[in-house]
C-alpha cells in the first residue's frame, strides 16, 4: 500500500493570473509529482496541492521565490490516513 508519510497539502491563494500560471507550471513538472486537490482556477479560489515529502523543499522554494504565499492545510497525510484506517477497522469490529 502506498504510504504518504510526511506528504503535505499546501493551500495557496494566488494573487493574480500570473501566479496561477506559475502554479499550473508545477503540474507540468513531472519531477515534482504534485497532485492538485484544487486545481489553479481563479484568484478568488484557493489552490490545494499535495506535495510528496521528498519534494517539499523544492516546491516551497519555488513558491517562495515566486512570491506565492501558502499555508499548510495538512501537515502529514499519513497521520490522517492512519486515523482513517483505525476508524474503519474499529467500525468493522
Amino acid at each position, binding site marked *: *500500500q*502506498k504510504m*504518504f508519510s510526511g506528504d503535505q*497539502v499546501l*493551500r495557496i491563494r494566488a494573487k493574480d493570473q500570473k501566479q496561477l500560471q506559475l502554479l499550473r507550471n508545477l*503540474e507540468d513538472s*513531472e519531477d515534482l509529482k504534485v*497532485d*492538485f*486537490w*484544487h*486545481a489553479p*482556477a*481563479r484568484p478568488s*479560489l*484557493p489552490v*490545494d496541492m*499535495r506535495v510528496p515529502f521528498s519534494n517539499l523543499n523544492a516546491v516551497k522554494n519555488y513558491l517562495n521565490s515566486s512570491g506565492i504565499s501558502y499555508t499548510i*492545510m*495538512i501537515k502529514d*497525510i499519513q497521520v*490522517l*490516513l492512519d*486515523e*482513517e484506517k483505525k*476508524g*474503519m477497522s474499529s*467500525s468493522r469490529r
Partner: protein
Amino acid sequence: LERSTSSFRYNAYHTLEEIYTWMDNLVAEHSDLVSKIMIGQTFEKRPIFVLKFSTGNKSRPAIWIDSGIHAREWITQATGVWTAMKIVTDCGEEPVLTNILNHMDIFLEVVTNPDGFAYTHSTNRLWRKNRAVNSNSTCKGVDPNRNWDAGFGGVGSSNNPCSETYHGPFPHSEPEVASIANFIQKHKHFKALMSIHSYSQMLLYPYGYRKEPTLDNEELHNLACKAVEALSQVHGTDYIYGRAISTIYVANGITIDWAYEHDIKYSFSFELRDTGIYGFLLPASQIIPTAEETWPAILTIMKHAYKNPY
C-alpha cells in the same frame, strides 16, 4: 460483512465489497421499492450497479444520481449509501418524496468508479481516475469526468495519460461513462441528473466547457439558489453556486454538460464538504452531517423536476 441494512454503519467508510453486499441487503429487504440493475462492467471486470427506486411498473420520467466517479472522494460514496437508505425510509412517510416517487423513478449509482474505489482501499487512497490501461504509456487511468462527449478533449482536460485529468482516447472510451450514457439514452425519460463530487461546497450547473449560458440559465440559477438555501438550513454549511465555467473553472467532457446536451435540463453537480481542513480525508464522523444536509438540496431539485415537466 454487514448482514442487514439496519446493522450497517452509515457513519463509517466501507469497502466496495461491503457496499455491494449492503446493496443486496437493501434490495432483499425492500424489494417492493428497490431493485438493482447491472448497467455494465469496468475495465477490471467489476460489475457496475445502479439502484432503481420505483413504485410503478410503467416507464416513467426519471431522475439520475451518481456518486463516486472520482475514486478518492469517499464522502460521496458514503453519502450515496445514506441517501439510498433515506429514500427507502422516507418513501410513504415524507410527502414530497412520496409524491415524487408516485410519479417518477429514481436511479442511484452509488459507486460510479468501482475499479478506482477498490484501488483506493487496496493500494492508493488518493487515486482519482479509473484503472484503464493506456496504450503507449506506463501511466494508468482516465478521468471519467473528462471523458464525456461534451467539448471532449478541450481546455480543462489533459491529453497526457499521466495527468489526473486525462480525458482518455475518445469520448465514452471508458466503460464507467459509456454504461451510463447508454443507459440514459436507452431509457429516454430522464428529466434530472445530479452528479456528486467533493470537496469545495459548490452546486454547479452547465456549462463547464462553454462560456455562453444555457437557454435555461435563469431557471437553473434560481433552482440552485433554492437548493443551496435548503442545504444550509440543516447545519449552516455555506455553498456557492453557479455555472461550472464561471464558478470553478473551464472543464471539458464533464457529466453535466453531456446530460444537458442530451435534453436533461435539470443537470447539476454537487461538490460536498469540506473547505480545506481535510480535503479527501474527511473524517467519518462527518458522513452523516454531510449526507443530511445534501438531502434537502437533492430533494429540492427532484421536486422542481417533478413540478415542472418538460
